[in-house]
């Protein structure tokens, strides 16, 4: 396969890169160029567009269950038109509601923010920013996308089976997920969920292996590890986390499949269901939770780290200042990657975990505040006295930091096992993880899309639509999730279909209506972003210079529309770190420029 690394080096030397628009000198068929492509840039775009499709589906689900939460008992005849029996009479049925919640979580966590985020930017940025022609193994890379595609098809098909998709929550805890008798969603829907996730895990492992060996082995001359741009470091740690934690989820999923279909009792014990006594004995549902959260917690950082890396880069470029504390950024990402494996049981404080063990996990959890705070201070000091250009990407990067601070602070509440006894499984938890991980990572992703769109498609996205997108989304995100903290502190549980039975919760009726209305508005604005994205691919303003943002990194030394192989001639050599902005009276110095004899040190 090593020959595949250097596909058609001769053809990339042919000129006319600037006006080449997807056809011309490559002599590749449509299928090998756009479908079964081995070009990392095309694979990145495939991940991105599949991720966008999933984001629409997963986002729509949240709009639907917000309708139920905001207007319980209200009939929406249009729902029956689209969903038939599952929303008979325009009312969302309980089973359908749980499916919506489950699939919203699954889709957003795995299909959008794992595959859509790190799949896109790891593929797109790693070879371009380290100075490689492609990934270590373009073939495995292609397989990684197609496993993801297959997982997507199976997950999508589960939405259409008669008994509906999985409905046991995105964590798929047994016994609910292990017994078909437990509910409609626990029938074939859960099998499809598990199979789809197994394929998804294979996809992320293949991808992760490739990202790691590409970063460690394929760097261009002079690109030492400490000269890597921060997105690459972030994607590296992301890949390491994925490669070490996803297999553990796979082992849990395999045991669960055995319990479901072959009658073993790995996770099941002493169950009576509808008056029927099951023969299972000695299984432990807690065991599943351990296996799940050993992935589940690193997964949080798999989602967050790429966003952190891209935000660092975009912030430095648009502040026209070097990133503050490059080594501190590396160190804190390393610390986060280590701690990610040591805190999983903070998801299990109320499962009957030994309180002493719990206190150890409290300590380790609160330790994460240290590297997180270091990163926040570094971002703020990068902005400090910067010559800031408020591009759309930059706004989203700043929005990321805002959300990361707000959401991170509530993590300190939840990380304490004593406070968690009150707050666990309430809307407070929903508010916390949506702000710190969900919306923040979406912001990182948006920042990345707006910033690297010129490199992806040779055109700009419309900035006016971008600004509207940003302001509505950040105001909307706070309006949606901020009030949920109060709901959670008041004790409103998450995942409940209807809480009108509790008099003490009735005071929140109008708040819930407001949240739902804002959710619909924010969702509509995301559709506008998607319109902007696809419109700009074909009709956006063309990029005329190869380095539109005045950035130092290698991806901007390629032609505007790079072919397979990225650089028409030799791969450039690197002479300096990637953050020489505003140095010695110069606005920026590209990484490819040799260090001058009387240049000051950074």
């Amino acid at each position, binding site marked *: *396969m*090593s020959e595949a*690394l*250097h596909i058609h*080096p001769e053809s990339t030397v042919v000129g006319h890169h600037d006006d080449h628009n997807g056809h011309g000198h490559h002599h590749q068929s449509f299928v090998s160029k756009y479908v079964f492509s081995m070009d990392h840039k095309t694979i990145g775009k495939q991940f991105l567009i599949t991720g966008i499709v999933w984001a629409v589906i997963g986002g729509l689900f949240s709009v639907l269950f917000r309708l139920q939460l905001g207007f319980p008992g209200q009939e929406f005849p249009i729902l029956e038109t689209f969903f038939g029996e599952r929303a008979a009479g325009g009312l969302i049925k309980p089973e359908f509601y749980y499916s919506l919640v489950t699939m919203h979580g699954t889709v957003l966590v795995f299909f959008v923010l794992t595959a859509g985020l790190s799949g896109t930017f790891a593929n797109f940025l790693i070879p371009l920013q380290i100075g490689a*022609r492609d990934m*270590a*193994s373009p073939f*495995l890379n292609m397989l990684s996308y197609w496993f993801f595609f297959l997982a997507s098809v199976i997950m999508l098909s589960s939405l259409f089976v008669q008994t509906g998709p999985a409905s046991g929550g995105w964590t798929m805890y047994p016994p609910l997920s292990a017994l078909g008798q437990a509910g409609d969603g626990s029938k074939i829907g859960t099998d499809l969920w598990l199979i789809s996730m197994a394929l998804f895990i294979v996809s992320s*492992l293949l991808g*992760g*292996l*490739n990202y*790691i*060996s*590409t970063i*460690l*082995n*394929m760097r261009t*001359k002079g690109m030492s590890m400490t000269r890597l741009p921060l997105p690459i470091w972030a994607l590296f740690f992301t890949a390491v986390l994925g*490669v*070490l*934690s*996803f*297999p*553990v989820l*796979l*082992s*849990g999923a*395999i*045991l669960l499949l*055995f319990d479901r279909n*072959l*009658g*073993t*009792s*790995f996770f099941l*014990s002493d169950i009576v269901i509808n008056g029927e006594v099951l*023969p*299972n*004995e*000695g*299984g*432990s549902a807690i*065991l599943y939770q*351990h*296996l799940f959260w*050993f992935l589940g917690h690193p997964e949080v950082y798999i989602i967050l780290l790429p966003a952190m890396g891209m935000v660092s880069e975009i912030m430095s470029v648009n502040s026209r200042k070097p990133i503050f504390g490059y080594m501190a950024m590396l160190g804190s990402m390393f610390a986060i990657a280590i701690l990610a494996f040591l805190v999983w049981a903070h998801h299990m404080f109320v499962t009957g975990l030994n309180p002493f063990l719990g206190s150890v996990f409290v300590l380790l959890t609160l330790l994460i505040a240290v590297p997180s705070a270091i990163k926040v201070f570094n971002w703020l000091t990068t902005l400090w006295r910067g010559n800031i250009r408020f591009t759309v990407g930059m706004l989203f990067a700043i929005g990321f930091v805002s959300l990361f601070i707000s959401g991170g602070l509530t993590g300190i509440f939840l990380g304490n096992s004593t406070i968690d006894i009150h707050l666990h499984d309430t809307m407070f938890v929903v508010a916390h993880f949506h702000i710190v991980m969900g919306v923040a990572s979406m912001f990182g992703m948006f920042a990345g899309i707006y910033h690297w769109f010129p490199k992806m498609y040779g055109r700009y996205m419309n900035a006016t639509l971008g600004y509207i997108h940003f302001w509505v989304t950040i105001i909307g995100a706070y309006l949606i999730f901020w009030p949920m903290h109060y709901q959670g502190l008041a004790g409103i549980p998450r995942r409940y279909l209807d809480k009108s039975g509790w008099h003490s919760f009735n005071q929140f009726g109008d708040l819930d209506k407001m949240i739902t209305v804002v959710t619909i508005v924010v969702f509509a604005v995301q559709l506008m972003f998607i319109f902007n994205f696809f419109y700009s691919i074909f009709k956006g303003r063309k990029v005329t210079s190869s380095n539109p943002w005045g950035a130092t990194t290698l991806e901007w030394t390629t032609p505007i529309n790079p072919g397979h192989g990225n650089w028409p*001639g*030799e*791969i450039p050599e690197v002479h300096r770190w990637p953050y020489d902005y505003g140095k010695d009276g110069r606005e920026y110095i590209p990484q490819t420029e040799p260090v001058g004899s009387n240049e000051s040190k950074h």
Partner: protein
Amino acid sequence: MEISATVENQRKKIHPHKYTLWVAIGSILMMFAGLTSAFIVKSNLVGWRDVKMPQIFWFSTVAIILSSVTMHMALRSFRNRERLKYRQFIAITVALGIAFVVMQLAGFSELWNQQHVTLKGVTGAGQFLYVIFGLHGLHVLGGIIALIVMFIRAFFGKSKNYSSVPVEVAATYWHFVDLLWIYLLVFFIVIG
């Protein structure tokens, strides 16, 4: 020229495919670490049942260790450009690998039929054994398929440059599944 420069550049470092394999090995180890730790947790709960290790697993151990030796011989002959010997050793390795998988299946059937370790109801060491040894067997099977592909290539292969990297990658993987088996066997004997 630029290609040969790249290749030259990479020769100093470890080849990307080998590196990928090492990371993959780490990943596979994590899966088995998850399963064996689940075994330990579960073995302290009520209703746990131990099993008697079927004797055939000792024979399969001998087979897989021998196959590791022949794999090493295959790699040596490939490096010494002795194509005929290379093919023979690969063929023996494949045969030993298949023998290993067959003996594993025989061990399963002994557990199932003579010790009555079925899947329904109580779950103990036996059920874990099916899952863990079964998954290990699948990994061996994957290695066998890779070796068969290489064996066929040794007849029809038309590669321009003589590179031992694919054989080295296969050999490393093969030794890994061998060591993994020894770990699993020792684990089941000591803990199980």
